[in-house]
């Protein structure tokens, strides 16, 4: 169980938390016993239940500790199913959390929420500005995971989190897929889940990179041009995906761009396949910049940036217009920076006992 600290006022407690390195630098909600208990109750699980161990500190992520991070982040009880699922996702071995927290690369867990939890868990936005400010659920859920990674996992900038610069998504990095405005089946359905399931998909990802494309329906190769420019953003020779290979990446299509592809009769699988085909470099091209990573193979040898098209996660999000986003990844760690999916369990969460003694 947690130890409780005494403080005269919430202002004093806030300063203490800042000084102790327990915040992300922004003010937090003070995790009083009552506030933490309220979110623990919302999980429907006992406070000492372990979700697993978070590295690099190797501390156990109990429900109470996760709820503490969630209080600090400003979460509501409705947000807790996604927060719990996100923590469960990043502690899976395949996520390589310990290595990811310590790397010099700029990587942060991007949370992609699909299914009914998008509405039921506080209204997680997948529309205009979903990765920007203004959406409480997006901001609080992603921030709760970050504070858990700091205060349970022990990540401290320059001490145990060695990201050379980091990126703003390390404060919070959470959105929903805009399933209603997507011409494709939902991402989680593509990954084998039922449409009625709620799922969070997590990838350690770089900050979003904008990809501009002004579609023209009169062009026969409208979709192909879009795919080409997406591939340029996804795996240019500045990205780890191109240089190290083997990892995953995210393409967040705005609804207009998604429709360009759908009108060309391309589904999610076909889009990923074509992008994987386009994301290739010859050893000779790599040698012009990254001689050490290029190796000694013949310069004409072609290297794929992705081991498999399934490593390119495609979702539909944001407002319609010129800009989609790509998020390359780190591509290192024991499992090469794989994405993980975690079902969001909502039916085990109970009502808040407002009339209890």
């Amino acid at each position, binding site marked *: 169980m947690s130890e409780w600290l005494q403080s005269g006022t919430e202002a004093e407690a806030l300063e203490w938390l800042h000084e102790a390195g327990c915040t992300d630098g922004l003010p937090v909600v003070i995790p009083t016993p009552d506030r933490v208990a309220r979110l623990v109750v919302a999980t429907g699980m006992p406070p000492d239940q372990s979700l697993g161990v978070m*590295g*690099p*500190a*190797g501390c156990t992520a109990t429900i109470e500790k996760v709820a503490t991070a969630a209080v600090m982040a400003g979460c509501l009880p409705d947000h807790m199913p996604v927060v719990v699922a996100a923590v469960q996702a990043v502690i899976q071995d395949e996520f390589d959390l*310990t*290595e990811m927290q*310590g790397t010099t690369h700029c990587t942060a867990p991007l949370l992609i929420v699909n299914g009914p939890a998008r509405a039921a868990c506080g209204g997680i936005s997948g529309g205009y500005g979903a990765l920007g400010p203004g959406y409480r659920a997006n901001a609080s859920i992603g921030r709760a995971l970050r504070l858990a990674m700091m205060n349970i996992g*022990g990540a*401290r900038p*320059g*001490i*145990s989190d*060695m990201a050379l610069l980091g990126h703003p998504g390390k404060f919070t990095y959470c959105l929903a897929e805009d399933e209603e405005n997507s011409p494709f089946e939902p991402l989680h359905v593509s990954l084998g889940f039922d449409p009625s399931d709620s799922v969070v998909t997590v990838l350690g990802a770089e900050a979003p990179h904008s990809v501009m494309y002004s579609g023209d329906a009169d062009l026969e190769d409208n979709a192909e041009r879009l795919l080409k420019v997406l591939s340029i953003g996804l795996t240019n020779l500045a990205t780890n995906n191109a240089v190290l290979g083997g990892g995953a990446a995210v393409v967040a299509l705005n609804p207009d761009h998604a429709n360009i592809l759908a009108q060309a009769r391309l589904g999610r699988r076909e889009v990923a396949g074509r992008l994987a085909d386009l994301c290739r470099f010859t050893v000779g091209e790599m040698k012009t910049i990254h001689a050490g990573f290029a190796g000694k193979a013949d310069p004409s040898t072609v290297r794929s940036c992705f081991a498999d098209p399934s490593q390119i996660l495609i979702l539909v999000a944001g407002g319609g217009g010129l800009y989609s986003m790509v998020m390359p990844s780190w591509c290192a760690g024991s499992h090469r920076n794989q994405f993980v999916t975690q079902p969001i369990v909502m039916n085990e969460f109970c009502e808040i006992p407002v009339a209890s003694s």
Partner: protein
Amino acid sequence: MRDGIAAAHRSIPAVALVTEDFWEQGDFVALSFSMPGIPRVRLPHPIAGTGKVAMTHVAEAYIRTIVDALKGPSNE
């Protein structure tokens, strides 16, 4: 650090080579694995990308220290 700790866990003699900028992270990792005494040698930073001549110079300057760390304090 973690590679060195993993090797030590397998009873393989190991010494972690840690550059100056990552020394504090080494402290953190060693403590989190309850192995604060894991042998370490502090190298100048950076090493990566400094070129073969510079790296050879560092290797020659530190090889004795590394070997001594591998031998451990009981052999000193």
